[in-house]
């Protein structure tokens, strides 16, 4: 069930499907075509990709070995710097806090997204039709909201004097008078605000995808488990989780990738501040390059974070390559 899920008429995801999908129009079947045709068709896209993806990637690595600063921007000349950019990054006092913050933030985002998304999927499975439609509607609305619109909306919701969040929190009388509370004043509350936004934005994809998986679990499995005396949580553990494993893994990996790369939300809500306290690796690379005009160091950070993400996602990449065998 690799590619057949893409068919327009297929079930919502088919992601967790059992693999019975007929490999109807599998591409590999027509091997007797004149050789040049596929390459001719592929060439325009390949050329464009080489220019807009391949070349920048190579250049990114090259820049990271050059002393590319403000002067180079105007002269176009940048001296070879060897590993100087990398040494500078490794010796930077910011490195460890950045790594720790990025890892924790990414983990907190992915964990919350998965737990809430999974709960949504399970709730939707047991809910009545009307309530379920309402949940789907809520999810789709949040999902469709453009990133920028949502982020700007957040600045208004959390606005210190007139923001509705501060007002609501004050009404609960749990935290005292928060009406003048500035969420961006401290790193922890700034990150918390960004965290809320990103979780709000990412739960829908996870919930809808997992729901598609959950709804494909055959009812007999649950009946059998119930006959054996399994309670709700045990049924979840022995039936739902094993059945959903491939989708769960996919969703977890994608969440980690997206959360690691969160930029707009941080940049527009806190700009990485105060004092770099809400900055992650991606934001750090950006500010090094575009605010400090040190493109070489920015590139080095970008290379390191891409490498870090690739190592973290090694399993995922291997899985894609493995899935590629069935393409």
């Amino acid at each position: 069930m690799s590619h057949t899920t893409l068919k327009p008429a297929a079930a919502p995801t088919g992601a967790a499907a059992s693999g019975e999908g007929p490999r109807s129009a599998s591409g590999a079947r027509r091997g007797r075509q004149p050789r040049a045709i596929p390459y001719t068709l592929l060439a325009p896209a390949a050329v464009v990709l080489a220019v807009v993806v391949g070349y920048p990637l190579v250049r990114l690595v090259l820049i990271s070995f050059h002393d590319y600063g403000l002067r180079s921007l105007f002269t176009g000349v940048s001296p070879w710097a060897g590993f100087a950019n990398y040494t500078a990054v490794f010796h930077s006092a910011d490195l460890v806090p950045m790594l720790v913050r990025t890892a924790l933030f990414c983990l907190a985002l992915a964990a919350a997204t998965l737990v809430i998304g999974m709960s949504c999927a399970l709730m939707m499975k047991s809910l009545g039709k009307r309530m379920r439609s309402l949940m789907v509607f809520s999810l789709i609305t949040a999902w469709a909201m453009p990133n920028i619109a949502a982020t700007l909306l957040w600045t208004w919701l959390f606005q210190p004097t007139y923001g509705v969040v501060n007002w609501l929190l004050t009404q609960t009388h749990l935290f005292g008078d928060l009406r003048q509370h500035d969420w961006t004043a401290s790193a922890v509350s700034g990150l918390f605000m960004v965290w809320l936004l990103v979780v709000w934005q990412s739960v829908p994809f996870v919930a809808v995808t997992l729901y598609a998986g959950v709804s494909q679990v055959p009812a007999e499995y649950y009946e059998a488990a119930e006959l054996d005396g399994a309670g709700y949580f045990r049924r979840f553990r022995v039936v739902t989780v094993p059945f959903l494993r491939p989708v769960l893994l996919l969703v977890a990996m994608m969440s980690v990738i997206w959360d690691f790369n969160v930029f707009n939300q941080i940049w527009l809500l806190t700009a990485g501040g105060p004092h770099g306290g809400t900055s992650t690796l991606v934001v750090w690379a950006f500010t090094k390059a575009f605010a400090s005009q040190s493109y070489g160091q920015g590139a080095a950070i970008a290379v390191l974070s891409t490498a870090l993400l690739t190592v973290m996602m090694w399993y995922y990449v291997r899985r894609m390559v493995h899935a590629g065998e069935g393409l």
Partner: protein
Amino acid sequence: MKAVRVGRVGLNAGAAVFCLVWLFPVYWMVNSAFKPSGDLTTETPRFLPFPLTLASFGDAIERPGFISGLYNSLIVTGGVVLLSIGLAFLAAVALARFSFPGRRGFLIGMLVVQMIPGPAMLIPMFLSLKSLNLLNTLIGLTVTQVAGVLPLSIWILRGFVQGIPVELEEAAMVDGATRGQVMRRILLPLTLPGLIATSVFAFIAAWNDYIYAYVTMKDQSKYTLPVWLASFSTAQGNDYGGLIAGSVLFAVPVVVFFMVIQRRLVEGMTAGAVKG
């Protein structure tokens, strides 16, 4: 029996709380956009937008940069969609209908490219555009956005082409049609739903881009709508009515299109990487 009923109530209550929390920001957005601007800054927030007014929308539209932002966004987005879909269709046919050395590698490459952080690509893109004198131009921005949109477009479209029975093409070729005719007369019309879905995906991705436009466009006359909106909040922190109304205007086309293709987007994202 009683436990079951308690469970039902708890379940529905949980779902209700979830819907409330998830819908609240959007409700607040609409509420704020339609309020008279004086009602935005009340001691106790007003939970209903009455008396309804479109003043904030007027305020947003009349601000300098809205018309040019809309124009720039439409040009760039249109260019990205046309370029990506044209290239992706040809590539998708090659990948779905032929077997050739390098095919698998290409497909895996399309997936792996998705993992590269967008901001990482920004540095070389910016410097290349700078040396080509393409900073601050719509063409430069269009090209950089194709990088983000094309790989996934190819991937999604390939799935749609595969879904079309190959027998139709074979029959046409037996009847003497050329490869070109088969593609134009048979594949193209049959792939139309897929082309539309992929175009909508490309539209949303390009329309929503902020960071590339933010870095490459220096003059306000070259801003796209997202950059215009974001600059709006930093320049004048007080005009939340206009900001939120502008965000609503910006979001409406995306929300509408998203509702149309949402189902297929899920398929496109999960397929390929999943092996059930």
